[in-house]
């Protein structure tokens, strides 16, 4: 037992004072009699001649006890009480939901085995135990907390979990756990994982960790990557890399599906921990290709990989220029862009193009839609007079979609066009108040002005059109023009970017299993439902009513996730104690002592007044 304020024990000095007061009270008791002669037979006591009898009365004993209790209570005595951790503690469960957790070397799968263990923890937890469930894959998120949700609800969410793709961001999960930790309770971390990530660094203050390492074998073969190269019109070459993560040789048969039918089959002899590549030629455009490994291993998710050849719609573009120069190759390099080169004299504004690029020429009026202007003419009705002016200072870029991914390192700016009638709009790039890139809305036209010299004359010091930033800027400008492009393939669990409702009015995604997902005008920027491998068919309708179809392959094959050989972490960092089973907690006795003193005070009052 310890005392928080031991100085208050000086209050025990009141005990002798109380004793003396009782002696004085006893000494001062007087008894008046009618005559002392009736008592004369008694021997009178001579004061001081012998020790007085200690007045051991109940009142004295109670007074002494009450004073002692209050003095000790003031000193705030505390005792260390051993409490079982189950009674009140915070158990934080970190559950790995990466692709490798779908391996079937545990009952059901590693994820299901972990969910069963966690459900057991939930059921066996004491009433005062707090549970926080956090899942982590490529990102970490809180699945639930028993302070907010019922434990049955947490168990239901656990049962509905499925692998969420590659990546194990354990540090993010650890940060979430520390943020959710109840500082008033002893906390413990329970990590359910197959350790398919490097051994983490545990920051100071990390609660004790119990590693629940799942997985027993590493027998897995996977299609790690799949790529398609267009050889010529109507001919593709498909390349696949297949790896064996087992520690023994394995024979698997790989089948290439083009569209719905199998077009080739090859038997593969895979050495232990090796990979090999295979390529196939495919004639025509089957819409999609898929490589499937036949046979069984512990992780079936990565036994196939597919990609879509209908990855995007065609965007019509017109290049109106006498001297297209660097503009033409930059436009032709954009996928899904059908470029038509038109002489300025042949340009007719009535023909609709998704994108019109003017080089050294401007019409009388802006065409509707997206317009890119490079090297404006010296005089025009739309932009006024244009004159070259040297760029005297390094430009300052601003965050803008036009400059996304653009690095101007090594750029020599030379001169840039200065316009007398610059339309008001955004200036993503300017050098000392001299605009270099401008985006403006003029009537029904979305105009992008490229004011640095593109088709430079000989001797011009600028390298704008030859710098790697130029095609990226052009690609960004094309993207701004509304090209709807879906990726050919996507890693399992990754988010699929959805086009804006202005470009695609209605969108439908048909997963390989289950019902289609439809998006209207109100839609999220990304869709995170690609949690099963396979071919996802996307149907998109633009405002004109034209409907395009796309195929996106969602693949689980990943170098780290497909290697399902269970890792073994050193439960180090001094945090290897699985939960604080018992904790020593100080308990103050002051309140109990004061209550006892109050009861004794009542007893004394009863004794005194009865």
């Amino acid at each position: 037992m310890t005392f928080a304020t031991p100085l208050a024990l000086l209050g025990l000095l009141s005990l002798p004072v109380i004793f003396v007061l009782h002696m004085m009270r006893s000494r001062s008791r007087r008894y008046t009699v009618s005559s002392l002669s009736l008592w004369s037979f008694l021997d009178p006591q001579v004061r001081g001649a012998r020790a007085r009898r200690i007045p051991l009365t109940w009142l004295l004993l109670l007074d002494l006890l009450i004073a002692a209790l209050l003095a000790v209570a003031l000193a705030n005595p505390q005792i260390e009480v051993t409490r079982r951790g189950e009674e009140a503690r915070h158990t934080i469960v970190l559950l790995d939901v990466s692709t490798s957790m779908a391996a079937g070397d545990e009952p059901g799968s590693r994820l299901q085995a972990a969910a069963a263990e966690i459900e057991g923890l939930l059921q066996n937890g004491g009433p005062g135990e707090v549970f926080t469930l956090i899942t982590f894959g490529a990102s970490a998120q809180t699945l639930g907390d028993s302070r907010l949700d019922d434990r049955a609800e947490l168990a239901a969410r656990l049962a509905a979990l499925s692998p969420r793709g590659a990546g194990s961001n354990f540090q993010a999960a650890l940060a979430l756990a520390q943020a959710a930790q109840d500082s008033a309770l002893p906390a413990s971390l329970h990590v359910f994982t197959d350790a398919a990530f490097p051994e983490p660094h545990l920051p100071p203050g990390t609660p004790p960790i119990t590693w629940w390492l799942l997985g027993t074998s590493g027998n897995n073969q996977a299609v790690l990557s799949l790529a398609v190269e267009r050889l010529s019109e109507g001919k593709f070459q498909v390349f696949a890399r297949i790896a064996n993560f087992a520690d023994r040789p394995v024979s698997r048969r790989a089948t290439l599906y083009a569209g719905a039918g199998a077009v080739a089959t090859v038997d593969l002899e895979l050495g232990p921990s090796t990979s090999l590549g295979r390529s196939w030629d495919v004639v025509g455009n089957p819409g999609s290709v898929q490589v499937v490994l036949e046979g069984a291993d512990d992780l079936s998710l990565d036994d196939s990989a597919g990609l879509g050849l209908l990855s995007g719609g065609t965007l019509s573009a017109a290049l109106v220029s006498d001297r297209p120069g660097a503009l033409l190759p930059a436009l032709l390099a954009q996928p899904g862009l059908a470029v038509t080169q038109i002489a300025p004299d042949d340009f007719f504004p009535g023909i609709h193009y998704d994108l019109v690029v003017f080089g050294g020429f401007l019409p009388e009026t802006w065409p509707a839609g997206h317009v890119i202007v490079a090297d404006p003419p010296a005089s025009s009705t739309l932009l006024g007079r244009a004159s070259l002016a040297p760029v005297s200072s390094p430009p300052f870029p601003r965050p803008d979609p036009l400059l996304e991914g653009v690095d101007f390192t090594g750029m020599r700016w030379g001169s840039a066009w200065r316009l007398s009638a610059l339309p008001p709009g955004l200036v993503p790039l300017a050098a000392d108040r001299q605009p270099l890139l401008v985006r403006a809305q003029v009537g029904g036209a979305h105009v992008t002005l490229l004011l640095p010299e593109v088709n430079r004359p000989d001797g011009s010091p600028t390298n704008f059109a030859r710098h790697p930033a130029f095609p990226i800027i052009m690609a960004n400008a094309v993207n701004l023009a509304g090209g709807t492009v879906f990726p050919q393939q996507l890693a399992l669990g990754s988010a699929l970017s959805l086009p804006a409702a202005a470009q695609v009015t209605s969108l439908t995604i048909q997963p390989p299993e289950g019902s289609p997902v439809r998006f209207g005008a109100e839609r999220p920027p990304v869709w995170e439902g690609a949690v099963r491998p396979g071919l996802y068919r996307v149907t998109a309708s633009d405002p004109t009513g034209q409907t395009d179809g796309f195929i996106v392959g969602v693949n689980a094959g990943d170098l780290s996730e497909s290697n399902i050989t269970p890792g073994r972490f050193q439960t180090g960092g001094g945090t290897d104690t699985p939960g604080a089973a018992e904790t020593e907690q100080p308990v103050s006795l002051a309140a109990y002592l004061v209550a006892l003193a109050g009861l004794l005070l009542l007893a004394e009052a009863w004794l005194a007044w009865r």
Partner: protein
Amino acid sequence: MWFRNIFRAEPLPPGDPDGTLDSPGISLAAYRQLDMLRIRASRYLPGASLGRRSSRLRRPASDFREHRKYVPGDDIRFVDWKASARSEHVYLKQGELPQETTIHILLDNSASMAWGEPPKRNFVLQLAAALGYLALAHEDRLLLSTLAGSPPAPQRVKGKANFPQLMRILADIPFDGRAHLAGRLQDYSKAHRGGVVFLLSDLLDVGDLPGALAALPRPHWEVSLLHTLHPEELEPAVDGEYEVVDAEKGDHVNYDINSQARTQYQEHLAEWRRGIELACIDHHVLYALLSSGWTLANGALPLLRRLNILEPV
């Protein structure tokens, strides 16, 4: 109307229906008993004047008691001619001459009588009032005197109509100082011829009791010693160490009063009472121990009746 006074109830003397008075008042229950009692007194006690008690004195009267020889000067109307005819002498018929008896109430008004809760004084005053009432009701002469303080002139009261005066006298008695029993009684016996004496005292620190009782010898004095003690004096209810203070003298002594001391106290008290009783027997004094916790109706008067100090009318 004139007849109202005939049927109007006689006003009761001052009293208290409950009999729990601090004053000398007498309860109604005690009055009812007193109306049926009188103080017993010997016929040989000297009497000063006519009263209602029979005496050894005779007078010529028609209510015949005895004869005596005629002497010249006697009223011939009381000559018993028939008896004289049968004898050679002339006899005179004589009747009894009723006399009064003097009732002396000697009240101990020392400070110790004011001790106790309620004080012994209350009970003693009520007892004196009751005895005085009996004396006045039976046309005896009542002399009230006190034992402490300077010797007072005895208060003489006679006649039932003077009972309120008696009550006032009792109420005005101060209880202070010490009683000087022997000297006071010796002086008292010299000043008075005799009578019935009621000595009301707690006998605490009264000095030579046998000497005092010897001052009032028989047959002229019939003394009743009404020894009055407080219940707390009869059985103390204290325990522990006390500074015991004498209420009369103011002396104080420290005593350790425990159960053994209380037992010794009882033995000491009994021995003291025995000494008093022996002194009373030696001097033909009636002794009665009274507790001031009693009431007249239920305690004191029945005891005095049993001891023949009081007798039925």
